């Protein structure tokens, strides 16, 4: 990773800034937890913690894919629509058994990711535009497939994925944690992870260095698509219904926020997996705190907006440092 070597003259200030940039999200997270422990009733109750984690699980899963995409200097706006397509397909294929339905949903995510990847890496369309197309078309496709209707799900296997736990931890949370571990390992310990960061740092240099840029970009967007579909499955299982009109709505924004607040710059070349997970947790915790203290939705949104701006403002000097 970019271990910033600061010039001696302003080292004290720069070092402090660097420290905040690197660990700000953790500090904020811990501070907010302490605040809640002190001032929010029933915050430390197991049921509350479990609820928060279950709610954040799909966002974490989507954010992990988003972090990889952003690390390549891209962006994926279509993740929410991919979730909707996955949710819409599940009830259509549940007749063949839950695993077939899950498989089809994941395959849909893979296909949509491959379309994004092909547009970005082979055709050379800008990531925002390429994935904007699928954001609009994907949601429409999901609604057409589902006939615009909410369908209740009664399959016991899927319902158990959404509501059962293993040694007290819900399956959905375990899935998110597992995904985080896998992505973290891939980013830190594999050649693929280094390539992702290299492409984000300079695509041209990566091409000249002989890296398989197209293949890597394809893989990144496919991963983001599959993870989004997975999140769509989890959200559907938890909701006990397939609701393609609302599932994943605006989730692309939450995911981008989690990634950026977690310390991954939108300019690519750097990725922080743990930061992303904590970023998602932090945004969830902020919202939960505001709700617990009876702040209305309107103020919650304004405060969230201010926090996003503040987080990006603090990180802004990273590029020049």
């Amino acid at each position, binding site marked *: 990773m970019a271990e910033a070597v600061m010039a001696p003259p302003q080292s004290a200030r720069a070092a402090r800034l660097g420290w905040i940039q690197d660990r700000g999200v953790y500090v904020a997270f811990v501070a907010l937890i302490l605040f809640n422990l002190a001032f929010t009733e029933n915050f430390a109750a197991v049921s509350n913690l479990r609820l928060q984690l279950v709610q954040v699980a799909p966002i974490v899963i989507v954010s992990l894919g988003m972090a990889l995409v952003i690390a390549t200097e891209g962006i994926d706006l279509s993740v929410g629509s991919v979730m909707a397509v996955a949710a819409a397909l599940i009830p259509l294929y549940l007749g063949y058994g839950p695993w077939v339905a899950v498989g089809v949903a994941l395959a849909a995510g893979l296909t949509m990711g491959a379309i994004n990847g092909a547009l970005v890496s082979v055709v050379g369309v800008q990531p925002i535009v390429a994935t904007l197309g699928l954001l*609009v078309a994907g949601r429409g*496709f999901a609604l057409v497939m589902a006939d615009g209707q909410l369908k209740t799900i009664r399959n016991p296997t899927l319902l158990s994925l959404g509501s059962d736990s293993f040694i007290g931890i819900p399956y959905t949370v375990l899935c998110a944690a597992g995904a985080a571990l896998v992505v973290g390992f891939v980013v830190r310990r594999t050649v693929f992870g280094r390539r992702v960061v290299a492409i984000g740092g300079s695509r041209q240099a990566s091409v000249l260095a002989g890296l398989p840029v197209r293949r890597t970009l394809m893989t990144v967007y496919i991963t983001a698509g599959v993870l989004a579909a997975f999140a769509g499955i989890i959200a559907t299982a938890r909701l006990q219904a397939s609701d393609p009109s609302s599932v994943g709505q605006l989730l692309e924004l939450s995911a981008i926020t989690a990634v950026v607040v977690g310390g991954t710059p939108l300019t690519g070349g750097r990725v922080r997996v743990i930061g992303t997970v904590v970023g998602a947790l932090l945004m969830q915790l902020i919202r939960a705190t505001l709700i617990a203290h009876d702040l209305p939705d309107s103020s919650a949104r*304004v405060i969230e*907006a*201010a926090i996003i701006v503040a987080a990006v403002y603090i990180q802004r000097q990273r590029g020049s440092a």
Partner: protein
Amino acid sequence: MSASGALDHPDAALAAATRAPVEEPGRRERAAGVMQRGGAWIVLVLLLIIGAIVFPDFATSANFRNIAIQSSFLALAAIGMTFVIVGAGIDLSVGSMLALGGVLGAYGSQWGSAGALGLPIVACAALGLVNGMLVGRFRMAPFIVTLASLLGVRGIVLAISDEGDNTFTVEDAVFFSSLGKDTLLGIGYPVYIAIFAFAAAAVVLNRTRFGQSVFAVGGNEDSARLMGVPVTRVTVTLYVISATLAGLAGALLTARSGSGVPKIGEGFELLAIAAVVIGGTLLSGGAGTLGGTLAGVLLLGVIQNFINQIPNLNASYQSLVSGLFLVVVVVVQTYLSREQRL
């Protein structure tokens, strides 16, 4: 820029002659250039012809008036978006600004037409100024700044409207209501306002110092600064323009419907971006035309009208078709601009 005029323009011919091996633009490249600049208009004409043949009720003046009035609100927002994108930025907050303009338009109508028009424009301009300062002055990424204001401005809308429960209605603002509802020669006022805005914007973008500065900033910010372009001021202005036009569109929408609905405008920013992109403006900045944007807006309007003409097809099909259409257009454009460069 394309070299299609190299043969008949003396300066261009000279420039071409000074380049090492003189290569005349082939027919393919020239066709590609025309397609990239005028492609949206060509597709629009094709769609109009197809519509006239396939749907009996399509080519009627009532239907065209309908398309025009429905497109005029998107048109206003897309003008602002064109400015921002030419300046190498992006504005995700226009959907929320539209809602704010709409709600404040209805809220402000208690002080007459001046309040109904003035309040949304001033408020949105001020919030656009905040966007612009964060991007231009504090040098933060436009995507994330306007993403935050997408959230924050929607929060303000909810705060004004009692968490979205309260829908204000327009009261005693005769002039304001007539702006949305009345017609001249059978065509609604919002259409004239949109046309006027396009004409004014085209003059500003292509014929003024500010417009040239926008191209310079979008093309290369550092070079623009070295040339003495007031980069910060230009950037800030772009976001003020975009927010103001979106707020105006929202106010007009309220004038037309008679009430300010807090929920409107979700996803509107994406439509505006899509219209600009379909119009041939590249998101990388430094290039773009308002004529293309107008064609993009009308294309989206015609697609929506097609879907409405077919019974059994609903809004889901509309987004499916629009999204796929966008993908096809950008793929074609990308290949064409590559053709030109080679």
